[in-house]
């Protein structure tokens, strides 16, 4: 029976000791999924199974991590643990028990007395999950009025207390502001305050820190640990990041194709994980600590650098402070330069200036020894082909209405006088082979390809022009871990084979570490540290670099597989 006013009537079992990795059997189970199966119903009424017989127990005061790649069914499972299904999701069987009640059998009005009251939800990307048209105060007040019948001063005090709980500066003023007036990390804090507003027993979090900077991510994780410790809330934490879950979660369930392939204490799963998929996930995750640095580029030092930037300053129109504050850099043939920084560090602006998408306000950029025109429209066609840019998200950088063939034909026609008209198809096949894609994709549209395949097409498009300089802007951050590794390998091979100079911008330290020969760390538009990648990562001199490195949850090396 559900009593919205007294949410913890079911918690009659004695609580034996602190939650955590020790003695979990004595801690009461607050939520339990039994043989849960879910399907998507297509437009034609056909059922597509997405979750197969998932059974999970969530105990009081623990963080249960669910890890998997996109399409593994982890988010669908997390939402179903609240009794929520998207309109096209059908329950194939099983139950979700919250204190003896099967949430899957409740109607929506009954579920509304549970949502926000006994189970809180935190979505990915708080910038989209908060209402842009309502003040923070109004958004926080809604569940408090509904579930706790708070009003007047009691309501206001609770709102302030919640924002204070998530360490938001100046809570009084924050109540009167709108979500877009806060940074990404602050928005996620507000979203957590919203989910925690009525002191729920359970918090369901769907990739809550994905897209945030490493240091912001670490601060949110600290906040979550404190909430679990102080309020004994039980957390389901969905993520694709095994390293993050290893550091944060008490237990981890690994999902693959809608099934839980492995579950256990976080350390057991990560260090001694027996399932091949877990091991594959771990092997694919780029690490900071392990060796295998990229081999030094041949003949990098003596020749003329492909790219040389001197004292580049970029100021966005209307902004007072420059976002790039006098940067020098050099990249030689076959060399990869990594630029690390958090959002707002100016790393992407610098890349845009080199690409000619934004004119620098001061300084010079030389390409192959000649001064580059500040804007791409003023550069000769040949130079435009020789400098290629790959963007973060292939969904927005590939035209959805063009087939792979037309996407790749265009740069060939523009930049490749050596390929005669009519011979483009042969060149496209060569390019597809180079990015390890089958010929059969040639007449497909981007929407028919997976995320990794799309990014390979974007890479093929860049290489179609035979570039001398490749500019990569966070090209792996929209991809799954296992796909990321393959894309990085591909890029490494292609850059080496073609002798391309590469500038690789990322906020992901491990990715830069795996790819770059030398590395620059940027902060507030300035270089705080530069050097050979190995030196920067093993012996950082700047405190900011050290803080960045500490914020990353590196996975321990996997032990040899058990037979």
């Amino acid at each position, binding site marked *: 029976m559900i009593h919205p006013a007294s949410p913890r009537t079911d918690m009659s079992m004695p609580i034996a000791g602190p939650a955590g990795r020790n003695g979990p059997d004595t801690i009461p189970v607050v939520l339990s999924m039994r043989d849960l199966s879910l399907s998507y119903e297509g437009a034609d009424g056909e059922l597509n199974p997405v979750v197969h017989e998932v059974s999970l127990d969530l105990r009081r005061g623990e963080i249960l991590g669910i890890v998997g790649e996109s399409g593994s069914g982890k988010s669908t499972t997390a939402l179903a643990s609240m009794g929520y299904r998207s309109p096209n999701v059908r329950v194939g069987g099983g139950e979700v028990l919250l204190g003896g009640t099967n949430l899957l059998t409740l109607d929506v009005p009954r579920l*509304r007395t549970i949502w926000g009251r006994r189970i809180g*939800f935190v979505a990915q990307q708080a910038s989209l999950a908060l209402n842009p048209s309502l003040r923070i105060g109004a958004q926080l007040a809604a569940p408090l009025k509904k579930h706790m019948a708070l009003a007047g001063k009691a309501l206001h005090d609770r709102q302030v207390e919640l924002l204070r709980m998530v360490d938001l500066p100046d809570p009084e003023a924050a109540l009167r502001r709108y979500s877009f007036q806060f940074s990404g990390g602050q928005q996620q804090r507000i979203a957590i305050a919203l989910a925690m507003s009525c002191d729920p027993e359970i918090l369901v979090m769907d990739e809550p820190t994905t897209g945030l900077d490493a240091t912001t991510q670490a601060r949110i994780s600290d906040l979550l640990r404190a909430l679990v410790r102080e309020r004994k809330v039980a957390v389901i934490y969905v993520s694709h990041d095994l390293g993050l879950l290893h550091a944060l979660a008490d237990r981890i369930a690994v999902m693959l194709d809608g099934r839980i392939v492995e579950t256990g204490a976080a350390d057991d799963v990560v260090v001694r994980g027996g399932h091949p998929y877990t091991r594959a996930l771990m092997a694919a995750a780029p690490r900071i600590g392990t060796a295998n640095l990229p081999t030094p580029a041949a003949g990098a030092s003596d020749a003329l650098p492909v790219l040389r930037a001197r004292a580049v300053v970029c100021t966005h129109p209307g902004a007072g402070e420059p976002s790039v504050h006098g940067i020098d850099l050099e990249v030689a043939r076959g060399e990869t330069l990594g630029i690390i920084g958090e959002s707002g560090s100016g790393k992407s602006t610098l890349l845009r200036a080199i690409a000619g998408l934004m004119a620098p306000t001061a300084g010079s950029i030389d390409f192959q020894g000649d001064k580059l025109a500040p804007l791409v429209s003023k550069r000769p066609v040949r130079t435009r082909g020789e400098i290629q840019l790959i963007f973060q998200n292939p969904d927005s950088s590939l035209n959805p209405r063009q087939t792979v063939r037309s996407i790749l034909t265009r740069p060939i026609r523009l930049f490749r006088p050596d390929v005669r008209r009519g011979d483009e198809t042969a060149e496209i096949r060569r390019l597809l082979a180079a990015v390890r894609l089958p010929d059969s994709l040639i007449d497909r549209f981007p929407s028919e390809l997976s995320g990794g395949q799309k990014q390979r097409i974007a890479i093929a498009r860049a290489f179609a022009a035979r570039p001398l300089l490749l500019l990569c802007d966070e090209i792996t951050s929209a991809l799954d871990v296992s796909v990321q590794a393959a894309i990085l390998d591909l890029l490494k091979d292609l850059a080496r084979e073609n002798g391309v100079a590469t500038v690789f911008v990322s906020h992901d330290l491990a990715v830069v570490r795996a790819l770059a020969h030398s590395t620059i760390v940027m902060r507030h538009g300035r270089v705080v540290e530069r050097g050979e990648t190995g030196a920067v990562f093993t012996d950082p001199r700047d405190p900011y670099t050290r803080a960045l490195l500490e914020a990353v949850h590196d996975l321990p090396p996997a032990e040899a597989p058990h037979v």
Partner: protein
Amino acid sequence: MVFARVIAIKIAWAAMTLLVMSIITFAATSSSPVDVARNALGREVTNEQLERFIADRGLNRPVVVRYAAWLGDFVRGDFGTSTVTGRNVRDDVMPRLGNTLVLAALTLAISLPVSLGLAVYMALHVGRWQDLMLLSSTTVLTALPEFVTGMALILVFGVALHWLPIDSTALNFQSGWSAWASYVLPVLSMLLVSAPYTIRIARSAIRESLSAPHTRTAVLAGLSRRRVVALYAVLPAAVPIINTLALNLVYLISGVVVIENVFSFPGIGRRLVEAITTSDIETVQAIAIVMGAMFIAITLIADMAAAIVNPRLRSK
């Protein structure tokens, strides 16, 4: 304050637009002094009469001076005297403007709640038969020209059923119910022509925000359906809806020309057509300026309303 500054800039722009519009109107409607005089005095005039007329009216002054004088009079509320009717243009146009404004206001007052209600209903039933039926009806109605809609209404409610007057001239000399009855068919045809477009835009805007992550956050906070729809689906969709309404209002002001003529409605649209056919330049100028000022005022109000419902626009 930023908001006040934004508004001040918008008002300054509106004033500039109005000024440019007055120049275009003046240039487009001014003909040579001789033509004006001939038009006013008729064919049987002597050269002396023409010259005296031109001198009396100051038509021989440079065009810039004439424009300045004309604009000055206009700003002071003096719309001049019609050379065709010999009547004061302002006294002629203002009552008709009043009629047209009542027509537009009635249409808007009915269209807003009806369109919004239908749009919410459709967005909540996307893809189901109710939605598809309403959607195809709006497509058909949008495609019909206003004189066809107007004629169809006349045939059904006026000719076949005898419920309502088909001619709104009664407004000129009657009051009470029969005056109001004269509004019914014109308002109905304006609604049928303008509301479907608002409904379609509002439906897709609300549909989008219904499936937005912030709406799911609200649902999963246990908020009531009514609250979720009003504050999380309709409110964030308000900007496109307001912009569409403004466009619609602009349409109502210009589409009114056709509708008023179909129903012989004594508004400025009908007066404009009469003035054009009689080459009544002063009246045409006055109505053109009044309509233009209304366009600009509506756009300005819509911009401000959009800024009020969307805090993002306010802070920019």
